[in-house]
């Protein structure tokens, strides 16, 4: 693999950029792998990378039904943060955030991580108290956050309407300055390239259609291009977890919902942080190309169609205009939908399963992107050691049966409300 550096850039520039090699290999599948990861999204690729790097397990395949970067990894609003309350989630996401801060160096690939801060607004005294509580719990877990008054917010985000005019005036907000955004495609490509460089086989256009079992043990996968034998198999196919786990006879505490996102035409820099609305559900940041990247609520019904309905578009944009009246004449460039694994307590499942040698990484709800490096780190540990890492000990599949749910929002077993 060619190392990317200023020297390689100069050398290739002098050659008219004709000498750049493929970023990752495109190998013929072997007959047997020590570990097969089902799903070539960010989580699957990160898992393969850390299996090779942290655990020395290099005979690994990542099997992807489509192409790298074509799933949810390339369909999100790229927000990275760790402002969680329950200890299990706080430690896990904080570890993930720490990995983000050095990810470009680790992968030798610019994932354009930008710690520009994530600001959650409060519009009522009740919300203010809830954010104080969240902030206090974050600080007790050693995670940074800061309360900003309305005046401080008005200075930090000049176009935000901080007057008394809106129906729900802003009274303050909680900011996590170490949070921010990253370039989503680059995360998939960077992990794919780094994993491939360590010997991982990335097999695209190859759909897993079943599992090969011996008794209660998984020994391989059936794919659209033939059978692959495996020592251990990890599932990382958020959005389709129920379908893939169903092939192994598992029924999951997950419903698949569609979440839409929107991108505006490119504008000059006007928002240099991530801002989330508190009186509804809306979040916005500005990409390096100048486009405003926006998201809102789920459509609130189960869907595998990667498309949404108009009422949610209207609701999200209404909230956005309440925050930023300056945007009223901005045009939308595009809109799309991604399929979310909505779990029954709003927290992910990174776990062993009742079937030997089968491991599950699922249930990422709205927030799988930010977890990408941390998820790969602990899932690789779980597969390599057949036991969870300290940071995913609580994220088991059994927690729903034994009452140890990790319910950050307190919404109960209604996946669409998390």
């Amino acid at each position, binding site marked *: 693999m060619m190392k990317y550096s200023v020297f390689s850039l100069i050398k290739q520039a002098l050659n008219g950029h004709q000498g750049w090699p493929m970023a990752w290999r495109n190998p013929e599948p072997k007959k047997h792998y020590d570990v097969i990861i089902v799903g070539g999204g960010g989580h699957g690729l990160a898992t393969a990378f850390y299996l090779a790097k942290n655990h020395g397990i290099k005979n690994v395949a990542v099997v992807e039904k489509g192409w790298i970067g074509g799933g949810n990894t390339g369909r999100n609003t790229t927000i990275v943060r760790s402002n969680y309350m329950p200890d299990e989630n706080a430690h896990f996401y904080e570890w993930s955030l720490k990995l983000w801060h050095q990810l470009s160096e680790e992968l030798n690939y610019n994932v354009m991580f930008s710690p520009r801060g994530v600001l959650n607004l409060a519009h009522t005294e009740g919300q203010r108290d809830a954010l104080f509580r969240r902030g206090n719990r974050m600080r007790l877990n050693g995670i940074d956050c800061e309360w900003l008054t309305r005046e401080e917010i008005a200075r930090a985000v000049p176009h935000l309407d901080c007057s008394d005019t809106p129906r729900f005036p802003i009274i303050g907000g909680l900011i996590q300055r170490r949070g921010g955004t990253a370039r989503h495609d680059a995360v998939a490509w960077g992990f794919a390239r780094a994993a491939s460089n360590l010997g991982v086989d990335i097999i695209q256009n190859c759909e897993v259609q079943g599992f090969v079992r011996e008794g209660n043990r998984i020994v391989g996968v059936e794919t659209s291009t033939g059978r692959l034998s495996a020592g251990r198999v990890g599932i990382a196919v958020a959005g389709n977890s129920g379908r893939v786990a169903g092939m192994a006879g598992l*029924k999951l505490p997950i419903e698949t919902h569609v979440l839409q996102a929107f991108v505006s035409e490119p504008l000059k820099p006007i928002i240099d942080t991530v801002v989330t609305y508190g009186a509804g559900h809306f979040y916005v940041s500005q990409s390096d190309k100048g486009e405003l990247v926006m998201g809102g609520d789920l459509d609130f*019904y189960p869907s595998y169609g990667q498309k949404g*309905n108009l009422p949610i578009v209207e609701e999200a944009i209404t909230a956005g205009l309440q925050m930023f009246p300056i945007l009223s004449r901005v045009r939308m460039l595009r809109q799309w939908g991604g399929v979310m694994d909505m779990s029954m307590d709003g927290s992910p499942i990174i776990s062993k399963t009742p079937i030997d040698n089968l491991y599950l990484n699922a249930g990422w709800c709205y927030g799988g992107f930010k977890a990408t490096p941390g998820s790969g780190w602990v899932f690789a540990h779980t597969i390599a050691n057949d036991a969870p890492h300290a940071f995913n000990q609580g994220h088991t599949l059994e927690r729903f049966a034994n009452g140890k749910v990790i319910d950050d929002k307190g919404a109960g*077993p209604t996946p669409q409300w998390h």
Partner: protein
Amino acid sequence: MQLFNCPFCGPRDQSEFTYVREAAPVPALDASQATWQAYVYDRDNPRGPHREWWHHNHGCRQILELVRDTLTHEVSSIDAARGSQVTK
């Protein structure tokens, strides 16, 4: 925008309705913990036709049972949800 043909109110905008959950037989009160756990938490979550309960909360306020395709969003049947079978 999608229309749901409510058996009581006629064709109405989907935004009048709220999805409740996957339709499933409600366990008896003295059913085992495992049965209740499966009812409360586990889902078939199919990609295709899905039997589910919706609440017409901005209309007749009845709970309806739909068969709706989760890939195409096409509704193939809609009726009042009645007499959920109780299992032990």
